[in-house]
């Protein structure tokens, strides 16, 4: 098992593909809480007309949520980067919620403690939300691979435009 930060995978959402359906929220709550309730989901969908996106924990290096907790209830798993919450220590004060730049932590409506993405089934492959997304808008990926994919996409788009320009010139 590696300890390199760059090998940590996170759930990322492609706003171009996301239809804002919220399937991931339902699946998450069923897997982790045995019920359908988006209010108990560790991934949350933002639906803003044409641009939709799902947001969950980014597994930051030196996570500010962990640093901000006055009760030392939060910790980060070394191997996976998952943020763990000590259910006995957490008082539900919500300081970490305010500290996170992504709104990736939530207060559990029943337990009154914070919770965030636990990368369910991570050792079997990919988290359930990624498995169930019907639009293939979610990926479980390392930051490095994500950057690679974006670079490749942008370059192929660029080449495509140039090819088109070339053909147009030939036709003149």
């Amino acid at each position: 098992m590696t300890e390199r930060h760059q090998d940590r995978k996170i759930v990322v959402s492609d706003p171009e593909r996301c239809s804002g359906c919220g399937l991931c929220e339902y699946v998450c709550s069923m897997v982790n809480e045995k019920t359908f309730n988006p209010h108990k989901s560790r991934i949350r969908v933002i639906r803003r007309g044409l641009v939709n996106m799902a947001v969950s924990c980014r597994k930051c290096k030196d996570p500010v949520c962990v640093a901000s907790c006055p009760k030392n209830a939060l910790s980060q798993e070394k191997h996976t980067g998952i943020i763990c919450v000590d259910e006995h220590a957490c008082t539900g004060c919500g300081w970490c919620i305010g500290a996170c730049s992504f709104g990736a932590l939530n207060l559990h409506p029943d337990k009154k403690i914070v919770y965030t993405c636990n990368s369910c089934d991570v050792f079997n492959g990919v988290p359930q939300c990624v498995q169930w997304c019907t639009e293939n808008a979610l990926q479980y990926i390392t930051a490095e691979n994500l950057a690679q994919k974006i670079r490749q996409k942008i370059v192929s788009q660029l080449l495509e435009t140039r090819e088109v320009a070339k053909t147009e010139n030939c036709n003149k």
Partner: protein
Amino acid sequence: MLGYAGRILYLDLTTGKSYVEKLNEETAKKYIGGIGLGMHLYLTKSKKGIDPFCPENPLVLSVGPLTATVFPTGGNGHAFISKSPATGGVGESVSHGTFGTELKRAGYDAVVITGKAEKPIYLLIDDDSVELRDASKLWGRSPSEVEDAIKEEVGDFYVRVAAIGVAGEKLTKIACIINDKTRAAGRTGLGAVMGSKNLKAIAVRGTNDVTIAKPEEFFSMVKEFHERMKGPAAQKYRTTGSTENLTIQNNLSCVPTRNYNNSHFESAENISSTIINQHYVAKIIGCNSCAMRCEHQAIIKDGPYKNTMTRIEYDNLWAFGPNCGVDKLNFIIKAAERCNYYGLDAQSTGGIISFIMDCYEKNILTKENLDGIDAHFGNASAMLALIEKIGKREGIGTTFADGVKIAATKIGNKTEQLAQHIKGLEVTGYDLRCLKTTALGCAVSFRGADHNRSGAATIDLRGKVDRLKAEPGRGKIIKELEDQYNLIDSLIICKNAKGTFYKEYEEMTKLYNATTGLNITQQELELAGERIQTLAKLINTREGLTRKDDTLPWKVMNQPITDDGPSKGAVVTKNELDLMLDDYYQARGYDKQGIPTTAKLETLGLTEHLTIITKKEA
């Protein structure tokens, strides 16, 4: 009883008081949810002959057992039910999006609203808290603006809103109720019932769990349906969208054009789904937990209506396109957007405008009668000008806003022959002269002219029957389709997903049982579909609708199709209609007048409503 919230909320807007009753298992099994449960509540809580705008007339909002689960297209619907101000019979309209899911999570299967608030209010349901809030600042604003304002006021982005526009406020009988900005419970004018109660909007926030009986079985079905929804059954909706119907139907001369003067639109190519998708559709978005998202969001990119955004489907495309003779997409999209702005049913609005244009072309109405509007067929600017008049209910808008039936009575001069409606509800984009199974379906539809009560157009268009022929057997086809559609609207599954059910009853039963754990049999579910139909018929019978109301518009029966092509000469004669009606009533177990028999009510367990038919018999 899982899946269901198990509670019904009763609210009196006059006193502001509310209480909750349990939904018992018996009622749940009998009426399923959605329109079934809603019509049951309506029939038992309303009085015969009540004015739809009377404060005592209940407005029922309901969700289905699947609502707020992850079942694709089934987890997101809600229905409104009341007496329709347009038809005088039962009014119901289903919508999807995200609104219904919050209501279920707030812990309600239905909300029964009676009374009338003293001044404009909106209803805020936040789990157990039910609050009436001042809406004087929201009065006069569009549903979309209202949604933003309420979210801002409540301070919660996830609060879901269903609201009426100006049309509903002014009791316009084609007013709809819009949720999630672009989704509408469009038909039968229930927005006006909301307006008559001074109820501008319903805002809901729910945080409770929705738990199902057999998660494993349920999820294996979800997985299966996800796969089916990637396949051919849902391909049209996922890709080109329902606007594709235009080309298919136009090739068969089945597109009512210029208020039924033609059945083929010569300029259909200019507004085809290919052009819509290439030049207008910015993104296809989805309802809550849907796996076949179909909501084609169109944006106008240039010209005076630049940046207008609205949802485009076959229905609004037809209403403002072929139906009004307009082939300019910028104007059609703008028209659809204006309907959402004022809270108008786009199909009925298009029906009214084509009626006005028809009267204008026949010199029954002139420019002077129409506030200076040159209402020729095809005049796109005139179409938009008329929407403004109808939406604001200003000037000539007052004459026409309540639909073509009422307008024709006001104008006289035999214009009822030009008014394309059934029971007071305007027709939709399927030429009934050459789609005869659909014609029967629309004639007997309990909410008036609407293809969505039986969906028989699919049978006609795919050639499963001879669409130009009226013959015995069509009654049974319509009966079976209606029963299925009733279940679809009561479980609340999206009708676009009907094709993904390969064995309708069997799979719906499995789904219902996996969700609720109530373990009903397939026969029980089939019977529920039939029961819901007869329940609607009982409401209509109580309100005085009879066989004579199960009819077709004048042009459908008297003006054969003139366009060259596969439908030339088609018309539905009185004899053909009578033949099909007799056949249908027989298949339903109704008498010759279309009234359910005592024996039928006994079979369906509806004897509590026996007095409705015995009084008729006496």
